[in-house]
């Protein structure tokens, strides 16, 4: 068995792990990062990036397909899609990005070991590499093993039942697609396949789709799904595959079988805490997650954990921020988790972006709030894109106008996440945003106008 020693060993090369490794390398820490897959984790390989590529392709296809019905005066022949080529293009992007990360790791003098790591104790791990087992000893270990799709017992992955990973690898557009789970992953992919021509049915157990957002925010998404012909069954339970290969569901109307060629199961993600020797460390847990403190330290000295394995929100950018912080901590910097704003973005059509507190959450927290929104229907730029559904909403504290939350729904509005997060993280008040010139004509003006309206000074409505 070959031995390797280092100062910092990172298990998992997803967004949290690789950012931690790059930063650690930059800080001169002797770092090893281990992952059986190419660097980038779920996000780059089978998550954020490939799904956005598919969503984009589907939108392009859909635009051409529906151009003739639109008001723009464009006509085109009936489009066709070679999904294998689309997937090839998408894989190209993924390859460029994972290759880019590998280069960045190398430049930071991080040793990247491909293989599955098994922790032996809080100071060492054995990695099963292609060349045999490799024993790595480290002063500090970072667990960044991420999360995996949750399987429904009655619908095990395999055959026609696919996870999000499987959906992104399809080479043919399924004629009929049943999506179990009306959360953001299911709706993003379900919408994409609907645009590519699939007949899509979404089965959601809760009373409405995207239950983590308020109804006002999800309403434009529901409307768009309806316009795209996506059938949404809420308050419905998936029971398993039917005799005809479709999806058996139970609703208040009774049992039914939805005809489907593929059943996409997207009922959430669970932290990966098994299968890599974590049991031997006996770390304190927080439900299914690893318990960490405000410095991402686990209950064992010298063992950190970052990313999805440490809890909600399971988002790549949170993991990256944690990874960056832990690298600094290992280098002896004085750091601690003090972030105020973690934006969440949902690439449905239209997109949803939310930072900070919703009106209900703010009120539940005991705040007296002023809430104002500005519809995209009154925004010039939105009208010129042909998409006027959606709005920007601000939640501010009534007394001192501190912005407590910003939400938006609208085509392409995920890009407002940057502005929203800046407002929240820097503790700006309504007057700060109102006093900032927002470029015309852009959809960002809706943020400006929402804040003006909250101050009772709206100009364009």
């Amino acid at each position, binding site marked *: 068995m070959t031995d390797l020693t280092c100062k910092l060993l990172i298990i998992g090369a997803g967004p949290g792990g690789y950012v931690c490794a790059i930063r650690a390398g930059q800080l001169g820490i002797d770092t090893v990062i281990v992952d059986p897959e190419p660097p980038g984790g779920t996000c780059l390989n089978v998550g954020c990036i490939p799904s956005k590529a598919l969503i984009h392709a589907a939108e392009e296809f859909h635009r051409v397909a529906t151009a003739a019905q639109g008001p723009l005066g464009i006509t085109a022949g009936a489009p066709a899609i070679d999904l294998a080529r689309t997937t090839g293009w998408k894989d190209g992007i993924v390859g460029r990005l994972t290759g880019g990360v590998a280069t960045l790791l190398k430049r930071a003098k991080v040793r990247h070991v491909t293989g599955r790591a098994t922790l032996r104790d809080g100071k060492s791990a054995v990695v099963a590499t292609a060349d045999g087992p490799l024993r790595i000893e480290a002063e500090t270990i970072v667990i960044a093993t991420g999360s995996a799709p949750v399987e429904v017992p009655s619908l095990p992955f395999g055959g026609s039942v696919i996870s999000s990973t499987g959906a992104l690898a399809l080479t043919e557009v399924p004629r009929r697609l049943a999506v179990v789970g009306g959360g953001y992953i299911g709706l993003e992919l379900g919408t994409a396949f609907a645009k590519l021509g699939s007949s899509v049915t979404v089965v959601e157990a809760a009373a409405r789709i995207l239950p983590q957002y308020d109804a006002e925010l999800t309403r434009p998404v529901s409307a768009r799904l309806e316009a795209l012909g996506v059938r949404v069954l809420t308050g419905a339970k998936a029971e398993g595959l039917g005799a005809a290969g479709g999806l058996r569901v139970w609703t208040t109307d009774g049992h039914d079988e939805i005809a489907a060629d593929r059943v996409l199961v997207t009922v959430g993600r669970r932290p990966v805490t098994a299968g890599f020797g974590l049991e031997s460390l006996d770390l304190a847990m927080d439900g299914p997650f690893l318990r960490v403190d405000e410095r991402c330290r686990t209950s064992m000295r010298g063992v950190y954990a970052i990313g999805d394995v440490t809890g909600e929100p399971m988002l790549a950018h949170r993991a990256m921020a944690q990874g960056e912080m832990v690298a600094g901590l290992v280098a002896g910097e004085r750091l601690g988790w*003090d972030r105020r704003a973690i934006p969440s973005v949902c690439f449905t059509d239209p997109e949803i972006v939310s930072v*900070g507190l919703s009106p209900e959450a703010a009120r539940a927290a005991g705040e007296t709030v002023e809430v104002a929104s500005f519809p995209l229907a009154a925004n010039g730029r939105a009208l010129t894109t042909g998409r006027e559904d959606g709005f920007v909403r601000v939640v501010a504290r009534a007394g001192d106008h*501190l912005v407590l939350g910003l939400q938006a729904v609208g085509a392409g509005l995920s890009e407002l996440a940057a502005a929203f997060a800046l407002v929240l993280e820097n*503790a700006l008040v309504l007057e700060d945003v109102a006093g900032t010139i927002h470029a015309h004509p852009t959809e960002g003006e809706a943020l400006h106008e929402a804040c003006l309206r909250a*101050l009772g000074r709206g100009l364009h409505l």
Partner: protein
Amino acid sequence: MGILSIRLPDIGEGIAEAELVEWLVAEGEVIREDAPMAAVMTDKATVEIPSPATGKVVWLGGAPGRMMAVGAELIRLEVEGPGNMKPAAPDTAPDAAKAATDPPAATKAATKAGPEADTEADSEADAGPGPAAEPRPDAASRAPARETATGKASAGSGRAVPAPRGGSGRPLAAPSVRARAREAGVDLRQLRGTGPAGRITRGDLDEWLAGGAPAPRSAPADGAVEEIPVIGLRRRIAERMAQAKREIPHITIVEEVDMQALEDLRARLNAEAGERLTLLPFLMKAIVRAVQAQPGLNAHYDAEAGVIRRFGAVHAGIATQTPGGLMVPVVRHVEALGLRESAAELARVTAAAREGRATRDELTGSTITVTSLGPLGAIASTPIINRPEVAIVGVNRMAVRPFWTGTAFEPRKMMNLSCSFDHRVIDGWDAAVFVQKLKTLLEAPALIFVDG
């Protein structure tokens, strides 16, 4: 958009000046109409001055501890509407909110709740949390000043005031400021931000660092020295104590009292319905009885005028620990109150003092004072006379002690009284007679209540 200059209003009681005790707003903060701007103290009363308008604070008229004349400029607000001054800084951010014209500045009662304070031999400590001043909605009307006194002890500087928090409960500051604070070992929760919504700016942190921040909490050896300005109530206490001790030659007599009979009586009374009686009402009634024979003890000595004023009324001062410090609320006309009436009035005035809503009348005019530390009362103490009174009765801790009956030791409930007298006007003999009289009355409590 204009600048509204607000002057220290006439807060009644014929005073010409008041001490600025605390700023309740900071420069740059937006203050709403009727929200308290500043606390000022006159004699014993702390009064919060509410803002007559909604606006942004652009100037503060001095540091806490400063004596301000009535009519002196207190604060300047940037308000919507014309204001009453020429605008100074036109580049400041406009305020939203409903503009307010300027109604006359009105004073508003300070309302404070505070944690426990023990006055009575066996009072239960009511441990309510004592947050900083919160203006009560009911006090927010612009009515004529309801003047109250408070036990507000304030460090005075902005340092004592916690920073406003965001929705997450974290201090409001940009990431760069937070990083610098962390680097410097500063807990931003200790700072008060001057930015909008109380945001902590780079400047605020600079100022804090320049002012010498306290050592980080985790530091193994703490060499920090914290300077707390002695202002407000604490300054008043300091002055009055020093004056009493300097001026009055104290004579203190400590005597032992067998409390068995009184405790038996008290237990029987408490077994009946009604409010539970503590020792103090009995003692107050005993004092009434004792000073009937010795009116010279229930008196004020005005040394300057060279006159002793004996009082028919017995107004019992009750030394009371409040969140802000020692206060002496007064139970008036104990001679005319029954035992339970005395108890009720005692409870009322001490609670008012602790909660900071005692009126000036309830805090002045005592003719003789009782001081008790309850279970903390020690074996003996040397009470300082509440000038210009001439006697103070100190109550020490009650305990079961062996008592020699002449034939055997018996366990009995014993308690000491430590009484101080102004030796300029009270001779040792008279002092001793008074203490003996109290002892006799307390040991045979029936004597307190029978005439003849």
